[in-house]
């Protein structure tokens, strides 16, 4: 009996390993070493701030060479868990590919980069535990990268205390700006800025984009996930901005973070209140649910549909599947360049790495392109920190000082970090629209990079 049980157990464990290992990833040769090409920074208009003139580094510590040393890129993310499909395998591949490419091109001043990637299952408790373990193992920890508003919020006070920079994909305004001088830096504009930027676009373009039969009055209904991410767009500051340009914003309608959540009721509530614009503050299956339901309710043609940056992503179209054309016409705040911007060297480089990996087309998503570029931005900051203080004196303070000294840091021209004058997230974005181009769905620029309204929360 015991032997049978053991055999059964072994077979099932083996089956699970085979199931997880033998997915659809294609096998290809590793890409050839690529030199880092000159990057083209997104054509952003500089925010109206004075950038103090910085002295050029006088000592190039990198010239000494750090062969034999290693730098660890710490990343903690929900690789598994309820929202894991959003990052997906593309995210892991991007980190591996970018670090391999940097190492093959000489590393950081000769030092090799190693990746430490920890699964936190989008669970705040695990985010904190993982961070504390990382900090305990590396007392000289300089930076981490996190993904999700929960992680951004949970870690903000700890990072401030420990002087560790968090490159955060959860763009929570409170975590970044309350109090000021926080250590959390966004990869894209805070959600309130994004929403205000979309409102600005609406007010400027309403005559051209308004649905047939709609009046001149713009009434925006925001539908978002329960929690701070879903509520991130409609802050007091962004609503005040909307009112200042004559746009009415209805009370936020929320829905559960679940693929089975009911979005009919919130959408009908918004429609009954006269919404002629629906703004989606969710991601992955969230926007897909709203898009599908708007069509089912025959509301799609009666409203303008827009969303935050994560709402306009390949995964939304993948989830919609054969119904992906239903998304045609949707607008999105788009604070980075995209796969179809092939004139940009950084995008070309990411594309080359992606194609060399032979990954599925559905992985050509925001998680790959921003993670790939983000690693290069981290390298730029670290090299500058070495230039400023030397390898021996590197720590979180030196890293952040170097970051602030640079002010803006381009991620291969795909996006740009901005920490000038207390800023903690970029303040410019494009507006793109889902369009059918040559038989394929593309995110097409309808308004190029512009400075978003400033809706940062008060310091306290």
């Amino acid at each position, binding site marked *: 009996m015991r032997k049978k049980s053991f055999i059964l157990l072994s077979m099932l464990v083996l089956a699970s*390993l085979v199931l997880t290992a033998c997915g659809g990833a294609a*096998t290809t040769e590793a890409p050839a070493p690529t030199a880092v090409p000159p990057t083209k920074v997104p054509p952003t208009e500089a925010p109206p701030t004075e950038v103090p003139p910085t002295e050029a580094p006088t000592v190039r510590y990198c010239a000494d060479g750090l062969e034999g040393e290693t730098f660890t890129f710490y990343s903690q993310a929900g690789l598994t868990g309820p929202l894991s499909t959003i990052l997906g395998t593309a995210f892991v591949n991007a980190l591996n590919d970018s670090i391999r490419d940097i190492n093959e091109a000489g590393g950081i001043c000769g030092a090799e980069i190693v990746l430490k990637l920890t*699964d936190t299952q989008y669970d705040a*408790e695990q985010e904190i535990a993982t961070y504390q373990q*990382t900090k305990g193992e590396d007392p000289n920890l300089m930076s981490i990268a996190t993904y999700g508003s929960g992680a951004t919020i949970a870690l903000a006070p700890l990072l401030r205390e420990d002087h560790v920079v968090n490159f955060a994909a959860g763009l929570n305004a409170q975590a970044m700006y309350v109090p000021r001088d926080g250590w959390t830096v966004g990869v894209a504009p805070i959600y309130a800025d994004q929403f205000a930027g979309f409102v600005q676009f609406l007010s400027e373009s309403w005559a051209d984009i308004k649905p047939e039969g709609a009046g001149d009055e713009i009434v925006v209904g925001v539908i978002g996930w329960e929690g701070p991410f879903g509520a991130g767009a409609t802050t007091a500051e962004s609503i005040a901005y909307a009112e200042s340009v004559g746009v009415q914003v209805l009370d936020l309608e929320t829905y559960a973070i679940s693929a089975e959540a009911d979005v009919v009721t919130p959408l009908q509530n918004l429609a009954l209140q006269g919404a002629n614009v629906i703004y989606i503050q969710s991601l992955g299956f969230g926007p897909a649910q709203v898009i599908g339901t708007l069509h089912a309710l025959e509301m799609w043609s009666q409203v303008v549909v827009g969303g935050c940056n994560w709402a306009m992503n390949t995964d939304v179209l993948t989830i919609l599947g054969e119904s992906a054309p239903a998304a045609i016409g949707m607008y999105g705040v788009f604070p980075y360049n995209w796969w179809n911007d092939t004139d940009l060297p950084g995008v070309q480089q990411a594309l080359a790495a992606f194609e060399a990996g032979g990954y599925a087309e559905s992985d050509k998503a925001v998680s790959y392109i921003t993670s790939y570029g983000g690693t290069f931005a981290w390298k730029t900051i670290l090299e500058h920190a070495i230039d400023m203080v030397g390898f021996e004196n590197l720590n979180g303070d030196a890293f952040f000082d170097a970051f602030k000294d640079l002010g803006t840091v381009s991620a291969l021209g795909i996006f740009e970090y901005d920490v000038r004058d207390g800023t903690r997230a970029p303040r410019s974005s494009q507006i793109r629209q889902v369009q059918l181009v040559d038989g394929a769905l593309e995110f097409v620029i309808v308004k190029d990079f512009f400075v978003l309204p400033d809706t940062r929360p008060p310091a306290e």
Partner: protein
Amino acid sequence: MAVMRPAGDYDRSYQEDKSYIRKPWQWVVLIASIGVVATCPYWGTPYIITTVNRIGYTIIAVQGLNILTGYTGQISLGQAAFMLVGGYVSTLVVTHLGLSMFLALPIAAVGAGIVGLIFGLPSLRVKGFYLAMATLAAQFIIPWLTKHAFPEFLGGTEGRIATPVPQIGSFLFNEPARFIYITLGVLIVTTFIAANITRTRLGRAFIAIRDNDLAAELLGVNLFGYKLRAFFIAAMYAGLAGALKAHYQRAIGTEFGYSLTESIVLLGMLVVGGLGTNIGPFLGTTFIIVMQDVSNVVGSSFAGIMPPEMTARLLTSFRPIFFGLILMFFLIFEPRGLAHRWQLFKAAWRLRPFSH
């Protein structure tokens, strides 16, 4: 479970019969165990220190559930919500009344206990599956209230408020290595209370209700009163655990968990550890938390030795599958929990070499 002892090994006094720790070596093991945990900030890795903290406050919540479910037979799916209440009460008391966390802890326990009483009221009319559904209400109502009522105090849609760092004088418990002493101290107290509750009139009434509530009532046990007491105590434990977790994580709110899933996991920890045993919460909580981490490590290690094209796929799928399989096999091969296995092991040791 009756303790199996070899012939000639018997108690010589009522005191000895009552004692929880019977042998000198048991004292040695107990003191050594506490010593190992207390000194782990000096020898343990960061992983061990943070994990001990997590296990510590989670055990307290599971101990409460054990009193309610393991001893009294009342199912609750609201334990995480009561933790949320405790965390908020402690945070608000420290933040707005300026009290020390050490004073706030009992207040949080009582606050959560009172809320637990309210959700325990249906236990008079319903039982089993229906009671589980009734307590489920706590898991919906309490988080909803924290997001929509008094946003200036509870954080509103932001889903959190900051929790102050505990301190004694100028000594801050701002690191896991320091906080571990608070966790350990509270855990010792709750364990002492939980272990003794089961041997009092109250505990015997709980067990009588669990085993046969009709018979218990005929014997004069006030079912409603005792069930409510069980809910109150369970929620108190949850409140304490929630307060500790909040101060450890520096924040409290729905963004930090406290969901239905967490309540189910707490129940799962109790089942895995062993219902109605004092050691069950320790074993079950430790097993589940460590297994979650082990599945992460195994997945990462396995991904590391696989071809690069499989790495991403393994990292994004291995953990839940492996963890799920381990739990499934555990329930197939050890349905009575780890505590039962521990009892069998101890019995075999006592009766050696004639354990069969």
